[in-house]
């Protein structure tokens, strides 16, 4: 016998269930007066630097139906590529940018809406630059463990080609599942949980 490592096991995940919005966006589901505003509902303010963008995320199940009970969170760097986080040691992020947003799916369309800015590039630990991206986390009824993936930008072709994370995707055709498309006034990112266009999800 050797000494014990004294490690704990991570608390196992359980589904967020159909009523996740009661807990995370109560004002959206009509529980008013408990919290002044829902957390993560605004990422930018007047002084935020960078290009304003709107992002619409919709999650689809294996039958092609949108998840109307999903909850999506995003996390991203500011316009210069700095994270508004104590873990950011390279410099100070824009104090007028939260970096983190949360949105409940529209109960009719399943669309999750975010008003944010386009992120700058962030380096890996070895100095290689990642392409501009937004990290995304998806929970819903029927999802046993929250799903992590990333949203990349269609106009960043050069940066996307050299992105070290996208380079990890062996089946190159699947890279397209992580690149948003330009809609009329917004970037549109459809997540497919299953099927031919199943989105690439990460274990990181």
């Amino acid at each position, binding site marked *: 016998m050797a000494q014990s490592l004294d490690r704990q096991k*991570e608390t*196992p995940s359980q589904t*967020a269930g159909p009523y996740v919005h009661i807990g995370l966006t*109560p004002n959206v589901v009509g529980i008013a007066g408990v919290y002044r505003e829902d957390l993560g509902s605004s990422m930018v303010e007047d002084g935020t630097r960078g290009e304003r963008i709107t992002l619409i995320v919709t999650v689809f199940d294996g039958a092609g139906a949108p998840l109307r009970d999903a909850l999506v969170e995003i996390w991203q760097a500011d316009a210069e590529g700095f*994270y508004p986080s104590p873990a950011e040691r390279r410099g100070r992020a824009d104090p007028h940018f939260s970096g983190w947003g949360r949105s409940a799916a529209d109960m009719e369309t399943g669309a999750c809406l975010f008003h944010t800015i386009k992120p700058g590039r962030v380096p890996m630990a070895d100095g290689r630059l990642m392409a501009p991206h937004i990290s995304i986390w998806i929970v819903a009824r029927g999802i*046993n463990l929250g799903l992590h993936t990333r949203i990349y930008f269609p106009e960043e072709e050069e940066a996307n080609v050299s992105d070290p994370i996208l380079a990890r995707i062996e089946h190159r055709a699947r890279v397209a599942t992580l690149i948003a498309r330009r809609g009329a006034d917004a970037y549109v990112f459809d997540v497919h949980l299953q099927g031919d266009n199943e989105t690439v999800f*990460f274990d*990181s």
Partner: protein
Amino acid sequence: MASDRLSNRPVETGPFFQRDRNWHPPALTPGYKTSVLRSPQRALISFDNTLSETAGPVFGHAMLGEGDNDLIHNFASPGEAALGERIIVYGRVIDERGVGVPGALLEFWQANAGGRYRHKKDGYLAPLDPNFGGCGRTITGGDGGYAFRSIKPGPYPWPNGPNDWRPSHIHFSVFGHGFAQRLITQMYFEGDPLIWRCPIVRGIPDRAAIEQLIAAVDMEATIPMDARAFKFDIVLRGRRSTMFENRLEGN
């Protein structure tokens, strides 16, 4: 050197330990029917954390309202209180190394004492309690500790099998220091016979992992003539030390 929120520990920036996906329920658990069409089928793509995963926002105590950790009163009319068995839920948020996680955001939601949610999609026969909203939140203190007050939620039937019932449970959302630590789970109550019959619980393969979700009655923390206490500790992914790792130092 910048210090950790609420403590004098230096900020840690190391990558998180790999997630043990055999400890969590797999994506596809056919006994929980909704998972069938909502479970990814391809292999996940793995990579070591970058700053995008190790960093996360800060949640300050200043954003909390006075009643946020008191579900008995935070939706009730003045002078009134939610119906049900009064309970205190308390514990610590630690990481896999056993280190307390200060400044973690905990959000919780639950059904009322009769098992009914305040949600237009919940049509269960049990009545709404006009004095119960069902949501609360808090931020862990310097040692990762937290506590809140509520009523014990009732079990409820749900459309899955012909006669499936959820055990009494409180949903928890946990936000530690990094986006890759993000976790949602459910807390169950010691002694509830419905735990071992629940298809959602049974998606977890290991019995010891299920037991990690069962809060223990703690008579020592109970307030006599007022509220029973349940202890629920939560473990988030641990961090590697970066002491010997090659990395470009930005400053």
